[in-house]
């Protein structure tokens, strides 16, 4: 792989942040050089001079060191990419590693992809956190490059249900992250308190697993050797129940997820669904969104009724409400 290409705004911002920690004499020297560039009024020449100065100090302050060392330690990844570029991330959400197709990068002979790292410049000033973050991100990339993993960029989606596509993508991301930190831990790497963080995310995303949650999490963290297909299978159908690709009997929207059994509905919520859909029976089930909706509506009605009974709300609810 050729050398790492740093975006000028990452270089500049990290140097400006590092300046605050410099011994006063060094900071003054940096400012003396930088202040002079403002006298250059020709925009292109001025830009070049700023970039040159910042790069010089970037090297001098060794702000690239951790990132370059960590990447170099990943020989297997390096062999499969054509080069690496570092760009500025504007938020933690935006930060991460990805592969850019050779075709997008405009190469004719070398078909290998480019490695693109998006980092917040401030991250370069915190070596320990940066190294930990990078080893996680590079494992994503190493999975993507590994034929045995079988990564595919686009996940299956349904044209009439974009929401389902987003849900699957979220679950995919969480599972993949769990398996990466799990594998790093198994390999004896220091991942700090990551196990608890991942367990929390996992629990928030896979609530439908109920009692089986801890067991499934442990399995993915401690044992599973993931592949794209395996992650997708769980992300698409976490409960492992037979997939009914039909429409929800209540809202009649297509649903990727199996219908939730209505068993968990309380009697008044069930009655509220029936009041709106007279032909519906609990055995028909309803989608998760409908279930959330009717539970929320029931809570609202109950509250409105409470205020009305207490004499603090003039208008009663617009139609008869079955509440306990």
């Amino acid at each position, binding site marked *: 792989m050729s050398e790492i290409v740093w975006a000028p705004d990452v270089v500049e911002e990290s140097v400006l942040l590092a300046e605050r920690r410099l011994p006063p004499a060094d900071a003054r020297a940096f400012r003396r050089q930088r202040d002079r560039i403002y006298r250059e009024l020709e925009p292109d020449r001025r830009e070049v001079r700023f970039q040159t100065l910042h790069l010089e100090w970037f090297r001098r302050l060794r702000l690239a060191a951790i990132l370059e060392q960590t990447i170099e330690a990943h020989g297997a990844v390096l062999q499969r990419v054509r080069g690496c570029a570092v760009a500025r991330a504007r938020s933690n959400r935006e930060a991460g590693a990805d592969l850019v197709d050779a075709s997008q990068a405009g190469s004719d002979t070398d078909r290998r992809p480019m490695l693109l790292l998006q980092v*917040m410049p*401030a991250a370069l000033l915190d070596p320990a956190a940066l190294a930990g973050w990078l080893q996680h991100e590079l494992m994503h990339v190493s999975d993507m490059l590994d034929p045995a993993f079988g990564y595919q960029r686009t996940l299956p989606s349904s044209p009439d249900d974009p929401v389902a596509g987003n849900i699957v993508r979220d679950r995919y991301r969480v599972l993949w992250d769990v398996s990466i930190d799990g594998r790093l831990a198994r390999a004896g790497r220091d991942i700090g308190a990551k196990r608890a963080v991942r367990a929390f995310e996992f629990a928030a995303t896979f609530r439908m697993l109920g009692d089986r949650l801890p067991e499934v999490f442990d399995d993915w963290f401690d044992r599973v050797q993931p592949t794209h297909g395996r992650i997708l299978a769980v992300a698409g159908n976490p409960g492992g129940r037979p997939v009914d690709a039909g429409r929800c009997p209540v809202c009649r929207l297509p649903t990727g997820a199996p219908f939730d059994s209505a068993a968990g509905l309380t009697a008044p919520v069930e009655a509220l669904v029936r009041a709106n859909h007279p032909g519906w029976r609990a055995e028909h089930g309803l989608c998760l969104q409908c279930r959330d909706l009717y539970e929320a509506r029931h809570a609202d009605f109950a509250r409105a009724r409470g205020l009305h009974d207490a004499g*603090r709300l003039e208008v009663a609810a617009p139609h008869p409400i079955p509440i306990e």
Partner: protein
Amino acid sequence: MPTVRNWQLGREMSYPYDARFPSRQFAFVFNINRCIACQSCTMACKSTWTFNKGQEHMWWANVETKPYGGYPQWWDARILARLEEANPAGQVWGGAPADARFGPYGVFEGTTIFEAAATTLTPDSARVLGYLPADDEWNAPNIYEDNPVGKRGVRNQLDPTGEQLPEHKTWFFYLARICNHCSYPACLAACPRKAIYKRPEDGIVLLDQAECRGYRKCVEACPYKKSMYRGNTRTSEKCIACFPRVEGTDPETGGEPMETRCMAACIGQIRMQGLVQIAADGTWAEDRQNPLYYLVHVAKVALPLYPQFGTQPNGYYIPPRWVPRPYLRQMFGPGVDQAIDSYVNPSRELLAVLQLFRRSNRIIDRYEIQEGPKVYEGSLRGRKVELFNDTVIAFGRSGREIFRTTIEEPIHVRTNAHANSI
């Protein structure tokens, strides 16, 4: 370090420069009770001054949803926390409110950002206690829009009786903000190149683009975070108080001082801006018939934003009457109870002055009231209420009448020539 007199804090404080006062001071009053977060002000400023490359993240005027929102995110919580660390449990007010233009809220016994710098920072950067927001904190001008607070300690649930007045337990409000053109600007104090200056004629604080070298000390120092760095010019920029309008040199003004873009655009009619006269000692010179003077010093219904920072900001707010008092006292100081009391039970004169908001885009220098007939008598929350249909007349700097309006909303009956048109 020199000492200066801060009338909002009722005491002297240290400041890196000697006090120098303008003859008039740019100032404004925002009535939070009326803001609907339509963001017309935000967009008026953006489309006038910050629509260029490199200014994408800049919102000199912004409206944020309190208590969770903020632009940049958590700006007030972060600086309040740093002050608290510098002076644990000491950020309190004492003394009695003075019946004068110096110390009307009592005496602030805590530490300002200038004083905290001296005790907590290394000498080199010791002028102002502040912090530099990270990139992502500037990303959202109204993050947590309309997110209310529920009962204390109860998550994901609103208080079932939270809407009861006098104070809601389920609440939020909109805080409209621009640069406060402070009397003791932190941005100015922190600039190592003296690129920031305060104009002697109107107290507007400007940042000289030819002098700025992008040190970002002002961004770090301004406790209100109203100075912002621009990556492509490598200089900082801030609100310029639309000075060509305030001066009356903008062609649109026709030579008569006009309120700023963000004021003029205000749909909720919450904003009034003017120029107040400053006395030799830095307090507001008595000017009984100036509407801003009346609201701040006579009715005492409008209060400075976070006066405890110590910059003596020139933006004043009529606090939202439904918000818990401890929160408001932290934000506007101890004058909150009296301000809300005057606003909720307005005097005959206050009611008239409140009608002056946004009837014109001209700067009002002076008002007069002509008494009108009694139009209502009744009682509200156990107090007797009388309404008079007084007429209030606004005059400009030149003494010319700008407009007159009445307490009762004027009714216009349209002829039925075009019955269904708007």
